[in-house]
């Protein structure tokens, strides 16, 4: 008999026998018992379950994450965490994580390669693209958080490339543009101190930060009246005094009519307007036509209700607010959303609530230091044009620097953009028309995706570079703005699990070294953090130990100096006029409407759930189980409309339009405006590597066309009409 084994991974030595004989850990049960006695260490860090980066305490036992609790000294968590924080802890131990660099070798075919090979190939290709086509054909995309912003910006500047985009064109670009034109920045709401609050499409109770829910609870406990205006009776409406269903896409008409009432009834804050604004007369003249009766026809809200809301708001001024929203009611949803944001700013200005308790609030950030420019010279700012037309004359000059990822896909398909790097961001799934996005990305000569998991965007990559999970990496010190700013850090709380993963800073430095740009990266992550902390008299050691520190600085109250051209509130925008748009907010009807005589025709609207972040968390089994337990993937349909179509609660329905079709269970409810069907936004993954999420639920982006809003190019994600029928 001949043994035929080849080689062994384990190499015994002469001492092995003695070591086995003397070992006292061979019995698992005894070992486990001893392990149980170990102390639990508590380490401060930052969550990655969504983009908020809430402060958290990670409890660690024997080198393993053991539990997580909210950090009390962080402005966004204030001692509380949501379900996503608990779910996100599991990413570290997920067997389906990316563990090695991968290279595309065919359609949907990837093979592992070494880091040396990956960096060599990427740098060579990037240099060739820069040489052949120039920096204007290269982009970087991410969900912008400070570590990525710092390293990516420096890297892009070092290659003289200006196109850094974020996810915001599918989120809140409208708000950024609308508020920049009127106030100069995007304010928050001092909800906790407000006496009268109107939410238009905003849904704190299923939104993104636990501190916002705490603020709302404080307002309710303090006797504030809360009005929720939304096509859907959402979780915030359940807490509110009043829910007013509105026809989707018509928030602008409501707001303009409320402005009309405030002005025509002389209820607005004349002193504030006189001292702090420009362009009021033009605005007042423009809104004369927007009567409550006019708006009632459009919004499906009775004129009396519109008048009452305006009067109630005025009677509480200045301690009242119409929340600026975010993605909700007038995020990147409709062709009129930018104008809605601008009009909403005007409505708040009319009640003079800027910087007032309970009104619009202005946050402050920690005043960080920076690296010594003598020792660590930064690359000059790029001299080239953006590739995505954001801020570019003739394209989308009013689009903010967040950029336009969906437009990049179009330009890539046309061969106008050649290379990109995307990190921790999944535009292939989270922008409308995945086919459009995938085709664009697959047209690129180079697409590097830096990720922890194999997302839909990875499917289009030429190279995929694996990062450690957020528990396994330290990032640079961050500032979290607010009434009191928080300084915080993502600590490495457990050892790296997969040795072939590398942090984003390591990846950027490797690339820079290979491309002859190392002189811009002659520092460590620790150096950056120490430089940032220097003016605050906080050592990095203290920062690491505490995780989050809320500073004593407080945002000033009262009317701040605004960052507009005039330094005042601008009812009239010269910049809008210069670019061919109306100087004051005016009515723009939605781009598309359901067919009036077709009982199957609906506008498809969507929204967040408090236990999912876009499509990033549906693959976490515990979070998806919440969805399954509550049937929360169901599409909502109005009861009366459902009855006409013979659809009963729990039926499977077919949702279709010319973009595609999908089947999903239905929730028949009176809690929805008859014109709309509502789909929760966190489902419909199609990456074959998401074993839990893929194939579960349907996604609104599969029914929405690739389109660009005229003012700033956002994605208009609720300009989609579908037909619904019993499956």
């Amino acid at each position, binding site marked *: 008999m001949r043994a*035929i084994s080849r080689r062994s991974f384990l190499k015994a030595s002469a001492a092995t026998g003695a070591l086995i004989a003397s070992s006292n850990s061979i019995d698992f049960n005894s070992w486990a018992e001893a392990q149980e006695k170990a102390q639990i260490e508590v380490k401060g860090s930052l969550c990655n379950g969504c983009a908020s980066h809430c402060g958290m305490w990670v409890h660690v036992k024997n080198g393993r994450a053991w*539990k997580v609790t909210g950090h009390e000294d962080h402005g966004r968590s204030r001692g509380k965490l949501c379900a996503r924080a608990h779910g996100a802890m599991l990413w570290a131990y997920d067997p389906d994580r990316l563990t090695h660099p991968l290279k595309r070798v065919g359609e949907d075919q990837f093979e592992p390669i070494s880091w040396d090979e990956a960096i060599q190939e990427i740098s060579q290709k990037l240099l060739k693209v820069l040489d052949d086509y120039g920096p204007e054909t290269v982009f970087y995309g991410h969900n912008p958080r400070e570590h990525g912003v710092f390293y990516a910006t420096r890297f892009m500047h070092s290659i003289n490339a200006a196109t850094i985009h974020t996810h915001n064109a599918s989120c809140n670009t409208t708000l950024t543009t609308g508020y920049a034109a009127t106030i100069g920045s995007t304010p928050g709401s001092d909800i906790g101190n407000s006496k009268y609050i109107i939410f238009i499409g905003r849904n704190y109770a299923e939104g993104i930060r636990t501190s916002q829910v705490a603020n709302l609870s404080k307002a309710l406990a303090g006797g504030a009246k809360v009005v929720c205006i939304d096509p859907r009776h959402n979780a915030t409406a359940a807490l509110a005094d009043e829910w007013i269903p509105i026809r989707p896409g018509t928030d602008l008409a409501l707001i303009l009519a409320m402005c009309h009432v405030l002005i025509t009834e002389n209820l607005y804050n004349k002193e504030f307007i006189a001292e702090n604004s420009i362009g009021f007369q033009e605005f007042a003249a423009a809104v004369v036509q927007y009567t409550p009766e006019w708006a009632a026809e459009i919004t499906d809200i009775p004129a009396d209700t519109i008048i009452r809301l305006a009067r109630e708001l005025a009677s509480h001024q200045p301690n009242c607010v119409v929340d600026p929203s975010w993605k909700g009611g007038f995020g990147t949803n409709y062709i009129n959303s930018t104008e809605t944001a601008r009009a909403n700013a005007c409505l708040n200005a009319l009640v003079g609530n800027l910087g007032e308790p309970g009104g619009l609030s202005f946050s402050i950030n920690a005043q960080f230091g920076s690296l010594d420019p003598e020792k660590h010279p930064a690359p000059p700012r790029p001299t080239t044009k953006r590739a995505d037309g954001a801020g570019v004359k003739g394209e989308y000059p009013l689009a903010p620097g967040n950029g336009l990822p969906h437009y990049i896909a179009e330009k890539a398909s046309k061969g106008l953009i050649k290379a990109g790097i995307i990190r921790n961001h999944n535009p292939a799934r989270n922008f409308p028309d995945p086919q459009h996005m995938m085709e664009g990305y697959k047209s690129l000569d180079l697409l590097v995706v830096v990720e922890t998991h194999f997302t839909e965007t990875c499917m289009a990559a030429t190279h995929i570079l694996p990062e450690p999970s957020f528990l396994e990496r330290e990032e640079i010190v961050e500032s979290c703005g607010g009434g009191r700013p928080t300084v915080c850090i993502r600590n490495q709380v457990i050892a790296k699990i997969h040795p072939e993963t590398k942090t984003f800073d390591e990846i950027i430095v490797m690339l820079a070294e290979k491309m002859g740009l190392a002189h811009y990266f002659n520092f460590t992550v620790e150096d950056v953090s120490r430089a940032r902390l220097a003016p605050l008299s906080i050592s990095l050691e203290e920062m690491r130990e505490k995780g989050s520190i809320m500073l004593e600085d407080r945002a000033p109250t009262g009317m701040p100096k605004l960052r507009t051209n005039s330094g005042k509130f601008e009812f009239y925008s010269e910049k809008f006029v210069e670019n061919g748009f109306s100087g004051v907010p005016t009515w723009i009807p939605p781009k598309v409407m359901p067919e009036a005589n077709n009982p199957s025709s609906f506008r498809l609207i969507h929204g967040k759930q408090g236990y999912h972040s876009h499509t990033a968390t549906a693959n976490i089994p515990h979070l998806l189980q919440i969805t399954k337990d509550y049937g929360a993937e169901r599409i909502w349909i109005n009861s009366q409309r459902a009855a006409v179509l013979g659809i009963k609660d729990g039926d499977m329905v077919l949702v279709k339009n010319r973009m595609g079709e999908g089947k999903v269970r239905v929730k028949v409810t009176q809690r929805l405006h008859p014109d709309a069907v509502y789909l929760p936004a966190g489902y419909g993954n199609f990456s074959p590597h998401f074993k839990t999420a893929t194939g579960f639920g349907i996604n609104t982006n599969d029914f929405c066309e690739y389109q660009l809003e005229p003012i700033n190019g956002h994605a208009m994600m609720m300009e989609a009409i579908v037909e619904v029928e019993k499956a």
Partner: protein
Amino acid sequence: MGTDEIRQQVYLTLADLLKQPDEVMVHNLIEGTVIDFMAEAANQLNYYIQIPASLQQDNTKQLALATLTRDWAESIGPFKGTCKPIESLYKQWTLDESCQLPLAKQKGWLGSDWAWHMKQLLEDFGLELPQQFTSYPDHLILQLELMAILIEHGHMAVQEQFMHQHLDWLEELWQNSKEQKISRFYSDLLFLCKEIIAADKSHVNKVLN
């Protein structure tokens, strides 16, 4: 060969078959030497094992390295494998009641108690954890190789304890291989592992009693 030497070689051969195929392995499979050895070893050890048909020479003589490598990668390989032979994935993540992570009492996650215990054992025995197994020291390949070392150097009671505590998940692994519809060759190989280890457990129990 004595009984323990045969047993040791059986474990090493099984571990070998689970590794990424190379030309030597494919040659041995085509020539039938691997399965001849396993059959003869089972015979000498009085282990009543049915060698699955797909592993027998009639079926392995057509094997090609490229095909077997693809099957390995998609079945049990570290990147694309849908049935990774890692103990943690088949056992409760921790028995420690103080853990409050949602995965604490569930299966399917890396880095469980079992992985950390394996790491501890390798450290205690002076055995270096190979770099490619850093993420999962409880991979079946390492466990089979460790069994071979325990047979050579350890008391029978130590072997019995290790098998009892760390090689008790192979039925679920094999069942999963069928659910995942991995290649017949690798599913049958996991079946063979399961059967041989079950027979070896009985042997060890008999010796100890």
